[in-house]
């Protein structure tokens, strides 16, 4: 029971830094308006540039959107608090990796509007996939059979379910971190490839 309450408060705490509901990045709007041209004038990769912006936002949201409700939840309902420092260290790493994966997925979603005129459809699809497959709506270990196994192997699982599992000590920490790191590396690499393709393919809109 405490585990369930803890999961609730943790998943709430992830909403801000991991941008579970999408948003955060202004990249899609900047591609549509053509302002991305200015971003490409910087001596920095577009993906790292966007990531720096997003990490700053995540840090801010962590302080304002994650800590207060969690502390309040702990005070009012009582949540599981790990005693082992190793668990905390693993959770911190898992949390950061979750933020990275959240960024990478939103970056790819935003870049899609280099090829399609309007990204709202992709954004909505991404929102549904993220909410459902991250464990935000329903913990993934309640998903049945092969579908549950599939959901738990997709990158969205690394956003909410895995950091929570690591916190609650329900998953081998190293295995979970390796899984997250693998997805983070793969998605960021894909982001780099797509950025390159975008610069070859697309029109920078406007004057």
């Amino acid at each position, binding site marked *: 029971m405490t585990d369930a309450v803890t999961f609730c408060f943790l998943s709430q705490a992830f909403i801000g830094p991991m941008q579970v509901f999408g948003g955060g990045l202004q990249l899609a709007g900047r591609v549509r308006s*053509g*302002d991305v*041209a*200015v971003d*490409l*004038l*910087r*001596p*920095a*990769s577009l993906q790292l540039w966007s990531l720096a912006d997003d990490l700053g936002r995540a840090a801010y949201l962590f302080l304002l959107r994650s800590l207060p409700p969690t502390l309040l939840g702990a005070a009012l309902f009582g949540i599981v608090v790990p005693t082992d420092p190793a668990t905390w260290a693993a959770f911190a790493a898992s949390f950061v990796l979750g933020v990275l994966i959240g960024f990478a997925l939103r970056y790819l979603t935003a870049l899609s509007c280099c090829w399609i005129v309007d990204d709202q459809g992709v954004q909505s699809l991404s929102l549904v996939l993220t909410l459902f497959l991250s464990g935000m709506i329903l913990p993934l270990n309640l998903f049945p059979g092969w579908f549950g196994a599939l959901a738990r192997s997709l990158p969205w699982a690394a956003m909410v379910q895995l950091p929570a599992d690591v916190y609650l000590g329900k998953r081998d920490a190293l295995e979970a971190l390796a899984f997250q790191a693998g997805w983070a590396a793969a998605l960021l690499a894909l982001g780099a490839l797509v950025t390159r393709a975008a*610069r*070859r393919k697309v*029109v*920078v809109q*406007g*004057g």
Partner: protein
Amino acid sequence: MIEVDRAGRSFTVGRGSARRTVHAVRDLSFTVGAGEFVGYLGPNGAGKSTTIKMLTGILAPTSGRLRVAGLDPTRRRTALARRIGVVFGQRTTLWWDLPLKDSFQLIRHLYKVDRMDFRRRLDELADLLDLGAFMDTPVRQLSLGQRMRGDVTAALLHDPAVLVLDEPTIGLDVVSKVAMRDFLRRLNAERGTTVLLTTHDLGDIEKLCRRVMLIDHGRLGFDGTLDDLRATAPDGESLEEVVARLYTGPPPEAPASP
């Protein structure tokens, strides 16, 4: 400093049976030497901005090759960014919600400009462009003229060898325009910065550019000195009339296919 060799850029637009290829720039060749001040003219949609986007590495060309400050812009975009300064008159590179001086600090870190060099250059630019009064003002509260001066400063803090200006005087009042032109002329004369200037304001061209290039339908229609350009017209015709005639004239001849 700038070498463009048979560069082309085409876009595929539309879909289904309406799908077609638009050649924004085709077979464009020119070179700009160090220290030159070149005006780059052309009607709307002629391919000016596309050229600038290729020169700055924002867009990859679909054919031909370019070199700017010794680098291939597409492959070495971030290295090139440290050697060139770019001002888009219709966009800003400043941070909208931050005071002007904070934007400059961010740029210092971004371009890894040495602190002393930065201080010296910023003092000099702030003096020349008269930025003192609004250094602490958030960019969103600046007038267009102030913002443009801020943008030009931002483009020069890392002391680029080449400055690319895309309509830097658009929307500026007469006084601001004159101040901007004076500044650019001095920059070119005293620091030897190579300048490529795109504008629709022929006053900019007359006051600043020794050389003029004119692009139309994605091809270079004229390349020569300002006097050469005037000489293409009967006496008494204003520069405006000369340019208008070149803009509305037949598209430049396609070079014979190899």
